[in-house]
């Protein structure tokens, strides 16, 4: 398989020898290949309760597990004769009704870890429960098939936190972390890549200085969107993400985050408020993508470290659990319910769901069916063979 270094060398040689002179300059600003399709990950920080989000309302066991905080049957937004959405996700119903939204259920991994920090690391690095990887799964993806050099970056983490799935890429990778485009453009003024690197550490630093500086130059602060974004923090993150998309020559993936979903007590109000923000934010992504003429090329995928305990706790909340349901939305999505919801009655000894699909099968679908990775490339990135989920056909 082609690694990044070879890839860059090959591309570089091609461009230098023949391609560059024959292409008009604007060709560089048009994303090419699989990465013209944009991936936007939405992290539901603190672990969203999937059972009250994608609700098996027709199952009698649901009411038994959730006597206090269960969503009443007549409030559930019906998706099928078995499942429905939390009412706070009303803004997503038009997207569901258009067949552009999939619910992928039963996602988890063997020997689940119930620590927030460790389990999100497992999801971010695409590792096994007992495996410690230094690179994010998308960093590995970009190392094996590099996004176009004309892009502002391979991946951008919005919100100013860690790089999550983009962290730890090889020398050629370009991952940015941006709290807001304004702050980034201001901070990046301190970046200065000039000078000679006398060792590899210095080389690494100058590379980052260069990335920050060129990303700052490639984000046009004058480009604005007509779409109105929600004023809450998640809406503003979405706004920053879509500004990067609109004002730059391209980016392969972005991550935004919303939380905290860690609802150990008093879950009803907290989760309803957060899901409302989630729905509004995703709708704004769609509106902005439509405005940019990119909805067919945009995919929104939610994820989090785990789901929550099947049975509610004594404080009208839920404790850490395992398998969960996530959503995939986009103009190219073939909507519907994907996968098998875990049984509500056959639980683990700790009262947790037994996952029916490995979370990496979702990643495999994104790599293969969204970006066009070969089976072998996907297998290398994910450290194993995972069947893909039929998201697009």
């Amino acid at each position, binding site marked *: 398989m082609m690694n990044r270094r070879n890839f860059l060398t090959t591309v570089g040689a091609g461009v230098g020898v023949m391609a560059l002179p024959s292409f008009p300059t604007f060709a560089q600003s048009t994303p090419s290949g699989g990465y013209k399709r944009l991936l936007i990950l939405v992290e539901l920080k603190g672990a969203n309760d999937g059972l009250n989000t994608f609700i098996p309302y027709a199952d009698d066991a649901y009411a038994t597990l959730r006597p206090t905080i269960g969503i009443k049957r007549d409030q559930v937004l019906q998706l099928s004769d078995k499942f429905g959405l939390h009412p706070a996700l009303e803004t997503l119903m038009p997207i569901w009704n258009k067949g552009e939204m999939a619910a992928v259920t039963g996602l988890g991994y063997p020997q689940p870890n119930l*620590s927030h920090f460790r389990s999100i690391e497992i999801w971010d690095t695409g590792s096994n429960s*007992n495996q*410690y990887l230094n690179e994010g799964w998308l960093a590995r993806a970009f190392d094996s098939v590099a996004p176009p050099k004309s892009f502002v970056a391979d991946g951008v983490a919005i919100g100013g936190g860690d790089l999550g799935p983009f962290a730890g890429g090889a020398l050629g990778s370009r*991952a940015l972390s941006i709290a807001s485009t304004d702050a980034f453009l201001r901070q990046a003024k301190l970046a200065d890549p000039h000078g*000679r690197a006398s060792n590899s*550490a210095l080389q690494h630093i100058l590379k980052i200085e260069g990335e920050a500086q060129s990303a700052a130059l490639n984000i046009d602060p004058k480009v604005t969107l007509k779409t109105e974004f929600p004023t809450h923090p998640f809406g503003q993150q979405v706004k920053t993400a879509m500004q990067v998309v609109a004002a730059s020559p391209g980016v392969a993936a972005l991550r935004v985050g919303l939380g905290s979903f860690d609802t150990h007590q008093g879950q009803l109000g907290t989760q309803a408020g957060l899901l409302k923000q989630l729905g509004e934010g995703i709708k704004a992504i769609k509106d902005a993508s439509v405005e940019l003429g990119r909805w067919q090329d945009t995919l929104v995928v939610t994820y989090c470290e785990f789901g929550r305990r099947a049975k509610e706790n004594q404080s009208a909340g839920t404790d850490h659990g395992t398998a969960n349901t996530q959503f995939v939305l986009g103009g190219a999505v073939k909507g519907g319910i994907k996968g098998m919801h875990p049984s509500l009655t056959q639980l683990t000894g700790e009262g947790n769901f037994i996952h029916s699909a490995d979370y990496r099968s979702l990643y495999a679908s994104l790599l293969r069916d969204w970006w066009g990775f070969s089976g072998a490339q996907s297998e290398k990135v994910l450290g194993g063979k995972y069947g893909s989920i039929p998201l697009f056909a």
Partner: protein
Amino acid sequence: MNAPETFKTVMNRVGSLYWWLLALSVVVLLLVAGIAPANAQNSAALPMGFDEARHLLNRTSFAAQVSEINEFAKLTRAEAVDRLLAETRRQASYPPPAWAQTYERPYRPDMTQEERMKANRRELVERGLELRTWWVAEMLSTPSPFTERMTLFWHNHFATSQQKSRSATLMYRQNVLLRKYATGNFAAMLREVGKDPAMLIYLDGAQNRKGAPNENFAREVMELFTLGEGHYTEQDVKEAARAFTGWSLDGDTGEFRFRRAIHDDGVKKVLGQEGRFNGDDMITLLLQQPATGEFVVGKLWRELVSPEPDNGAVKTLAGHWRAANYEIKPLLRDMLLSDAFWAPENRAVLVKSPVDLVIGSLRQFRFSVEDPAPFAVILRQLGQDLFNPPNVKGWPGGNAWLNTTTLLARKGFLNRLFRADEMVKPAAGAAMAGTSAMDAKPTSEPKDAMTITGQTTAQLMDKDLVGANRQRAQMRLAARGTETMTPAALPAFGVANQLRGQYFFNAEQWFAQQPKQREMNDDIIWRTVLAGPPVQASKDVPPTLVGLRSLALDPMYQLK
């Protein structure tokens, strides 16, 4: 206790020591200048000179001050290393928070959810921050930075996170343990770390029982603490886990307790040996493996010498180390006196950790720090949240410290550190007194004073300590800050404002430390501040805050 008061006092005492050293160094300089040009010493039998002294101190301490560098410059390499090792300590000098003395269960089974959340907030947010602040204060004020560097090295090696162990007291006790052995005996440290309550919780040792083994500690002690990957089998992990059964802790005292009833005393076959091994036997077996020394020495090499260990040299050092019963000081001496440590190609090749950068900058430029708490928060923002390494592998370190976010955050921090126009100037004449500068009053109101990031400490508690509970914690911190604000008793170079975490740097005074040196050698400023020639900044540094800022923002400043 009143932490800022105590901290001030300690810093003041340290400050006086610096003045004494400064005076001494001037004398020394006059003596040394004639016989030992700073850049010409390669022979180990002669005084090191300025550059070698700086290299040694910056790899083993937090960025050294000119006076310290000059002090060491007159020593031979061996004299200098022996002095550093002789000055190491086994205990912290800064007093710990009062709660650290007693153990209290973070949770009791009879607690309501509300009480649990309150306890969680207290342990993780409040005590967690006080614990981090305490360590930062120790690093800023210790007379033996090498001790703290090594304590941090072992914290990273035996990585344990308060996120899982919860109890701030247990994390404090582990830190005390790591410092006690930081330059002592590795074998003894390993034995005690295995029984350390925070570790027993962190790696589920306390859940490891006969018939229902938990392999977490058994696996990590082999993979990450001793042998390294590839030197043991899955079967070894299973058998070792059986040997460690019964290592548990007493819920009331938070102390180690061996529970015979859940110990598996059957025969184990592990690492090619067979016997009724218990946990102590298992540690003995691990210490007998040559791989253990090689693994740890390799890691120490990456900490002190270069990013890519010389395998032959590592094997030799590890062999000597095992023969010396894992005494750490002889190993450090060997490594610091090795040719590789001094090799020109190994200078300025290591990326500073956030602790190196933050603590080093504050110490080297003698920043007056009123409250260290905000710096503990900044360390987290830069990717090194003390007592909370990302996982049992610790911080990856090296080049991984830096990405666009963390590098820009570092540069933003440095830029603000050296932004003179926002600082409170001390009253004229008070700065150079050298004895009781604490009496001086600032010339402007606290509101004009420098804050660390333009945010309050409370605002800096920005993220994920306990998610939704954060706002309440922020309000509490804000309230506490207001209470302790005492603008009437302002020290010379800062403003007593715990909330805003102010600090002050006196550039004039700093430059005044080396006027004689400057006449002899115009390079002395960048050679003090940087590990190698500046990449972007001018070598001819104007003796101003702007000049220092240009060096601090140079890529070379990120290296040691």
